[in-house]
């Protein structure tokens, strides 16, 4: 049984006392009304070109504030989404000098409101379909920096098909998967990552279906970058976001995100001071798998991971050393450290590999054909058949 089935499964996810959903009757203010942000300096570059690197001289250094759209953030107070938004806004100035090249594309759900809060280009698209828009955009404008924002319902239920396909294609985008193990926006039904037995508004007698193992699923789709982090660990989250962005390919980051309204405490085992150390193992490439403040480690015994006591004879040299390039290890982590209460859950970069991205391959194919055939001539193409002339 999942550790998630322990105490918190008992707590029914009833309706909040206050109607605190993000949907309200009051019209939102237009995004940029708040603050007195000056207009961004107009630039000469009007027609974007796929090759697109205009001159980047003398660009002002961006700050976190530059990425804040000024729109009222309308997640419930206390929602884990705020921390993710802050982390993204904080790391972006380090990752890009050109805000105008950054695009956030989301699906539908609480998390998918995200693009409205970013002062970048963005699309709040259709439930489950964010990867499809991202694919068309990135495949035709590979120079853009595209981020996909999604949730467990969005990417693993209605959008599970697109989620796996974008991973296998290895589109060069970042995907942030806000996993809160519940449907928030529709008011608290169980999600495809909810633990079995979950009592919700749609499952008053407990949910029956086995949940997805998100990173296991992604690995099965041959994802090239898998990482997991926590909304309540901003430092770690920022480090992981940087890694995901640096990765050439689909940088998938699963964030354990607390929905304090409908599924409060779903991840407290991993985030709260008294339980975190014992239940989390933070992976570092080349470092032994040690947890519980150095008192425990993980050892590979045959094909099985086993917890060893480092205070009693064993040492870190007995522990498995993390190799983020090792696919077999990734399989072992995603399978054995998922449904097992006795072993800690891994966080950090679980796996990464180099594989050409879909967008770069497509660009290369277009370039290659064009250099072989020369730039296409419309008139010649129209005549490329058996023709005859009527005088």
């Amino acid at each position, binding site marked *: 049984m999942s550790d998630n089935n322990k105490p918190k499964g008992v707590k029914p996810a009833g309706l909040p006392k206050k109607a605190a959903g993000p949907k309200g009757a*009051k019209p939102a203010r237009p995004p940029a009304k708040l603050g007195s942000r000056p207009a*961004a300096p107009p630039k000469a570059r009007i027609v*974007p070109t796929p090759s697109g690197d205009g001159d980047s001289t003398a660009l002002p250094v961006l700050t976190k504030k530059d990425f804040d759209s000024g729109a009222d953030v309308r997640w419930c107070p206390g929602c884990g989404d705020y921390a993710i938004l802050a982390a993204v806004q904080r790391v972006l100035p380090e990752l890009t000098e050109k805000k105008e090249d950054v695009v956030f594309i989301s699906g539908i759900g609480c998390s998918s409101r995200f693009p409205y809060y970013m002062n970048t280009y963005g699309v709040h698209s259709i439930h489950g379909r964010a*990867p499809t828009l991202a694919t068309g955009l990135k495949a035709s404008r590979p120079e853009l920096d595209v981020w996909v924002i999604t949730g467990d319902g969005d990417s693993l239920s209605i959008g599970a098909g697109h989620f796996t396909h974008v991973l296998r294609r290895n589109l060069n985008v970042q995907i942030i998967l806000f996993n809160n193990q519940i449907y928030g926006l529709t008011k608290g039904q169980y999600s495809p990552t909810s633990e079995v037995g979950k009592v919700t508004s749609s499952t008053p007698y407990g949910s029956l279906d086995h949940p997805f193992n998100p990173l296991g699923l992604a690995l099965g789709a041959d994802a090239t970058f898998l990482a997991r982090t926590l909304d309540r660990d901003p430092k770690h989250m920022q480090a992981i976001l940087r890694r995901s962005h640096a990765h050439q390919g689909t940088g998938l980051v699963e964030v354990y995100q607390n929905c304090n309204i409908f599924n409060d405490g779903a991840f407290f085992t991993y985030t709260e001071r008294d339980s975190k150390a014992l239940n989390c193992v933070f992976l570092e490439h080349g470092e032994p798998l040690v947890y519980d403040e150095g008192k425990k480690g993980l050892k590979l015994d045959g094909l099985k991971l086993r917890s060893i006591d480092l205070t009693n004879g064993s040492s870190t040299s007995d522990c498995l050393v993390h190799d983020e390039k090792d696919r077999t290890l990734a399989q072992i982590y995603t399978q054995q450290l998922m449904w097992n209460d006795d072993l800690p859950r891994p966080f950090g970069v679980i796996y990464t590999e180099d594989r050409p991205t879909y967008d770069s391959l497509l660009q290369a194919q277009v370039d290659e054909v064009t250099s072989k055939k020369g730039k296409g001539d419309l008139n010649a193409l129209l005549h490329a058949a058996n023709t005859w*002339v009527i005088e």
Partner: protein
Amino acid sequence: MSATTTPIQQVSDVTILFAGDSGDGMQLTGSQFTLATALARNDLATLPDFPAEIRAPAGTTYGVSGFQLHFGEVAIHTPGDEVDLLVAMNPAALKMNLDRVRIGGAIIANIDSFKQRDLDLARSDSNPLEDGSLSGYEVVALELTKLTREALKDSGLSTKDIDRSKNMFALGLALWLYTRPIEPAREWLKGKFAKKEMIRDANLLVLDKGYHYGETVEAFAARYEVAPAKLEPGTYRSIRGNEALALGLVAATTKSGLGLFYGSYPITPASELLHALSKYKDFGVRTFQAEDEIAAAGSALGAAFGGQLGVTATSGPGLALKGETIGLAMMTELPMVIVDVQRAGPSTGMPTKTEQSDLLMAVYGRNGEAPIPVLAARTPGDCFEAAYEAARVAVKYTTPVILLSDGYLGNGAEPWQIPDPDSLKPFEVRLANPDSVARDDDGAFLPYVRDEVTNARPWAPPGVAGLEHRLGGLEKDARSGGVSYDPENHQYMTDIRAAKVAGIANEFRPLEVEGDQEGDVLVLGWGSTYGTIKAAVDRARSQGLRVGHAHLRWLNPFPNDLGAVLSKFSEVLIPELNHGQLVRLIRERFLLPVKSLAKIQGVPFKTSEIEEAIHQTASGN
């Protein structure tokens, strides 16, 4: 070539039909005959008709594949009501197509495939070649299989390979019978089997044998000659609708300077567009075979957001799946083209058969009030211009546009006067300019402040500083594009989106009426029925009726002068390959008691069917 002894008769137009098992190569035979006919300068129209199964059980009626071709020195608008020559490769092909042959017409049958087993497979009780059922026709029974085997007995090929080339015998014979040039087929074979010399030589030999066979056996009373048609001066090629549509999109990308992104999922009969466009990488065309119809549409929309010409194509069931994305494209007001090569529905329907039954889905098939411009192509060649127009309007008005083609247009061929790229309408692209866009007091870009003439909103692809903005499916504030639940704003946005689409009609040319400009009956059509309606109207007028023909390019919005045109005729008849969908739109808009001629059989109208309906309508029946 041997001295011609068979007399040659002049005829003005001919319809021939090659029919056989799906493995008999009838589509190839038909398309090569079409090419020869085009090069002989005839006008023509074709109707390929094949089963959905790739390899249906051999010899059965449901495995029959046919290719009908109507050609002439006169203007040809339809693939022909009645067949003058049927080439039947087996009893199943004969059985399925005999009713199309005119009484007195000719049938060439491969007698080697009329054995008891073949008759059983076709579920024929007796042999039609012997039981007198073909007494009204001119029957030429040939030992096609045997003749081919004899011709190739020294070729070193297996019997299986030899038998596969018997369609070339039939092609050669048909070319001879209609005095068509044989060279185009020879050239084609040389190219196709360039790397398989034995097969190439065998096919060339059999093609020649077939051509000479007619002379040798003197089985035919006459050969036929069809003089060149009087087409407008220009350079021509034979073109099928799907080819023309792909070329129209390439023209749009070239003329607009916008990159073309084509996201698509394979579906009959639209897949060919993907095949064609995927070759045009030298035009910068990016094709993406998506994981499903939804992803295909989503990717096209994502590309459109990125400033590309985003295009997706499908057929009926796929359009149903794309509906939500089309709604988002409408809401975000991004230019996008959705092509529906319609097929017979509902549900999976009859994928290889033609129909016009997606009209209401195109016009109305989305949640909420989601008006979208819809246009239709009328002939295979016209698919070129229709595709170009769809893209041009999408960009000019920042809206998704649905282009309706159908299986008959997609697969059918006609001679096409190749347009001069310089003569195409200018394709204006106005991307948002950060120096001149509307901004609020704080300097923030207002992406929903519209162009005063077109009501288009600024198209502002990423990559330009100062134009960062967010789009989405939630209702938009009329200026900022921010999320708005304001009641007045929703009313306004709903109204303005409708007005934007309705306003496209302001740039239409006056609706053209062919034939009489006022009178007894107006035949109103759209899409692939154009040629048949035209032929039927010509006939009815020659019999003294005052009949006009108007054919709609745009189904949404209607032309502004449509009401005036309708009012000039006592009756309005609307023939459609559906259950009366345009009829509903016209009744709804004009409250007129228009008459419907609805045919849902998976095949185009016959001219005679429309002609008869015109007479009935005129006489008040």
